[in-house]
Every structure is written in C-alpha cells, then in structure tokens.
C-alpha cells in the first residue's frame, strides 16, 4: 500500500454533502459501486470539470463535516477511482466508516488544514504517519493518522476484502476446532 501521496491540492470548504456535492444522488439510489464509473462524476455538481482536472496522487483538502448527510459510500468510491486521497477537518460518523469501507487513504480531525494550503499547491501527505507537508509554502504539520486497525482495512482495499478475509479466517478456525474434536 502506498501511504505517501504527492500531488496537487484541491481545496473545498465546510459541509460538502455526500449526496449532491460530492456525488450526484442518483448513483446512491442506483447502488452503483464501481469506482471507475463513479470517478467521472466526482464533485460534478460543484465543478463539472473536476473529474478532468485531477490526477492520481492529488489530494482533496476539505473543511468541516466532509460527507455530511445520509451515509452513502459512492462519493468515497469516486475519490478512490481517481487515485486521490483526502484530508478533512472533520468527517461525520457514517461517512468516516464509508471512507474506510471504500479503501480510501484519508486523515480526519485535521483542525485548520484548510488554512495550510490553497488549490494548486504541491502537497505531500503521509497517511501512515499523519505528516502533512505543503511543498509550495515549505510548511509542515502533524496530524493523527487513522488507528492501525483501520489503516489495515484501507490497505487491503476496504470493507469487502476485509469481510472476505474475516470470513475465511472464521471458516479456518471452525475447521481447526472441528478437526481436533
């Protein structure tokens, strides 16, 4: 898993809604979960050109309550589809889980992060350690990374793979118990 992202900053303000702002609601209603489909519609209701402008390794830096609203996963899958990562001042409960479920490298609870950068700045963020560097400005900040148990879920690609592995482990241990009796 690549934990260090180096790329351009795309800065957003507070209260971006998971439905509408980050991803059109219709994809949640249609239960579309293919990151390669969703990526083309990321942020399209705020900036129709966004999906064309970003490049893998770029980093979205957002204010408070990123992904607020009904906890749908599609927006986070869209971010991941582009190979982007996320730094947010806060992410509400349901969306925090969905960012992990989508296998997205992110930092949350990054107070003041939006004051540390502007769109277009060159950033380098280490999602394993929480180091946030603005290479354009020459500034560095330390934030708390995700707990290692959650980094482990992100590292394998998110919830589905994590669930699959837990099921396999449970089946294995059931077999061991069965075999020894």
């Amino acid at each position, binding site marked *: 898993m690549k934990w260090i992202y180096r790329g351009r900053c795309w800065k957003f303000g507070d209260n971006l809604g998971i439905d509408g702002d980050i991803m059109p609601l219709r994809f949640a209603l249609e239960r579309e979960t293919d990151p390669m489909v969703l990526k083309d519609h990321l942020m399209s209701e705020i900036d129709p050109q966004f999906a064309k402008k970003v490049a893998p390794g770029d980093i979205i830096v957002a204010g408070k309550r990123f992904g607020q609203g009904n906890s749908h996963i599609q927006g986070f899958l869209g971010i991941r589809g582009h190979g982007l990562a996320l730094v947010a001042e806060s992410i*509400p409960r*349901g969306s925090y889980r969905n960012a992990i479920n989508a296998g997205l490298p992110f930092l949350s609870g990054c107070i003041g992060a939006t004051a540390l950068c502007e769109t277009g700045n060159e950033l380098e963020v280490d999602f394993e350690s929480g180091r946030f560097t603005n290479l354009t400005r020459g500034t560095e900040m330390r934030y708390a990374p995700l707990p290692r148990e959650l980094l482990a879920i992100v590292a394998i690609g998110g919830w589905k793979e994590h*669930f699959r592995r837990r099921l396999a482990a449970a089946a294995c241990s059931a077999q061991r118990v069965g075999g020894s009796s």
Partner: protein
Amino acid sequence: MGQTITEKILSRVLGRSVSAGEIVHPVPELMTVHDWYVVNFDKVLQEFGVTKLFDPDRVLISTDHEPVAVTPQSSERQKRVREIVAKYGIKHFYDVGRGGLGHIFPVEEGLVRPGMFVMAYDVHVTNFGAVGVLAIPVVVEIPEVLALGSVWLRVPETVRVNLSGRLKAGTSVRDVAQKLIADLGDALVDYTVVEFGGPGMSAIDISGRHTLCNTPIDIGAKSALVEPDAVIRDYVAQVYAGPIDMVASDADANFRDVVEYDLSDIGPQVAIPPTPDKVVGIETVLGRTIHHAFVGSCASGNLPDLRDAARVLAGRKVAPNVRLYVTPATQNVARAAAREGLMEIFHEAGAVMTAPGCGPCAGGRIGALAEGETSINTGTRNDYGRLVAKTAEIYLASPLTVAASAVEGKIADPRRYC
C-alpha cells in the same frame, strides 16, 4: 481512572477493560434489522457465500417501515422477508400486526434491558438508550455483524448531560430533545455517546427518554442513553423478571464534557427545513400555512405523545385545509390508545390513524406530501424529499404543537390549549 457506562458495557461484553479510542470487536446481544433491508443483507450474504448466521437467536426483524404493503413490489418484498427469516432460522420476527416499530417494542417487551449492547441496521435504534441500553447503528457492514457476530467499533467517548428543572405547560420533552441538539452542536457530540442523567430525569418517563435518545444521532453522535435510575428500574421490572444491571458511570469517568441543562426556560421549539438541528422558538414561524400534519415515528409515537395530541384535539376539528395522520408506534401503544378513548378523539377530530410502525416518516411511502406543500410533524428528519416531494417543506415539532397547528391550519402555539 473510572469508566463511563459505555466503557463498562463494552468491557463486560468483551470480557476485558476497554476505554474510549480503542478499536474493538464486541458481540452484540441483539442485532436488529428492519423490513426494508432484509432482502439486501440476504443478497450480500449470498455474494459472500454465507449460508448461516452467527447466532440467529440474537437477530430481530421488524416489519415497521412498510407494515401495510401499498404496491405489488412491497407485497413481494414482504414475502421474501418471511422466506429469508425462515431460511436463516431468525428467532425474533415481528411481522405485520405483531410488534410495530422496532426501536420501541423491544423496550416494551423487555427484550432489551439496562446494560445490554445492541447493533442495528437503522440509526434511530439509539432509542433503546431510554432504558440504559448501548445501541449502535451499523449500515454497510450489517451483513458482517450477522455473519460473524461483530464488526470493528472505536469505543466512543461520552458527553454527559445533566438535566435539571421542570418543563413548563405546553412544552414537552420533544421540545427539549430538539433544542438540546441545536445547543450541544455537532462538534461537541461528534462520535460520542450522549449520556443523560441529573435531577430533571425523575420527571421524564420512558416515552420521554425514547425522545431524548432519538435526536443526538442526527448531529453525528454515535449513540445516546440514559443512566439507569428508579424510573428505568420500575419500568423494566414490570416487563422482565430477571436481574437488572443498574450500570452507572464512575464519578471520575473521563467524559469529553459535562453539560448542565435546565428544562425550566424552554418553550415550544420548531426545527425548520432542512435539518433537525435548525431549531427556532415557535414565535419565529407562527402562522405559516400547513397542508399536512403527522404525529408518530420513533421520536414521538408513544402513548404519552398520543395523549398530548389528543388533549389538544379533544372537542376540536382538524382545519379543512389540513390532513392529519396519527401513527401509534407499536401494537401496544395502539391498543392502549384505543382503551383510553384516544382513537375516538382522533377520529372525531378528522384525523387518520395508520398502522403501528414508522408511519409517513419512513420516506413517505404512506401519507406523502405533494410539491409545494408544507408539513408540520413529529418525524425524525426534515430533509427535502423526506416525504417524497422535493420542494415540500417539513417542520418538526412536539405532538402538542403539531396538533395545535392541525387545528388552526397554520403553525400554532400549543400553550393556548394547555
């Protein structure tokens, strides 16, 4: 360092002492799923090759979002739900006409009790906190909980809220529950359990506690619960014969914050569109024309809520331009309302009673709004589109305020009826 109720419950379930911030895999003592997600979790389990649940005896399914099937598709879905319940051997199945709203009847029936740990597919399961249960919603990963018995959980911190004072006439716990989340704010309660206690609790019954524990989730809390006290003990003792765990937070527990909150100064409150925490005093919105009103939901569908509405409606009529729906939360509430003569009052007033369950609040499958209309109701959410029409406006208020507004045909102050 002492522990909060939440830390104690999770420590008991895990068999070791845990504190806020740790990532754990506690196994819930009950897992609940409502009628609209059963087909979905079955599909996911099939995709992953799961044929057996971790423990079907711990699973509860309630047909509350759409108890009366109103389309051919929903009749088919209900049939599928029954087949899936049989396939997995799920023990607690409350089909149409049995329990009612799954966030409320398990409390009435003693299925959930102080100190228990529950996970559920639906955010308002936090209602179980009314009797000191720690109930945590799980959405995407509920199939994992059903198949393996657990999912990762970061032990939440706790915000302790001490209520004091007494409610004034014309004001109910619903007004407090709405104003409280606006006053606490999302930054403070983010990923915390809101724990209620204090001298003001002695005058708040179990119904009011359902309401208090219902709203914090809507500003980002992880759950809410009431510290078990004499009101809870007396209630639970009537529905459950076994020992009652009067779990309490330690005096030196590490709370994120302790908030003192006085009930005496609170008047009727209204949440304006589009979120439940956009709360204003009723003075701000008095006189706005309404077309639709509704009393019910997991926030305000208990017997005392219906009594409040009936008190205003007795001997009066719903205004000609308004349709009023009343939904008892559970079969028990409906039966008690009938016995007390509340149903007679509602029918005489020109209200429509609907089947026990969520009522219109479940996405407006029944009793929806048309474009451009306005509703005042006791539901949980007021997003645009919650009751189908995208341009319709939804105001949330207490059963007293909703009933008074239904009588006047516009948002009205209930204090003149109390």
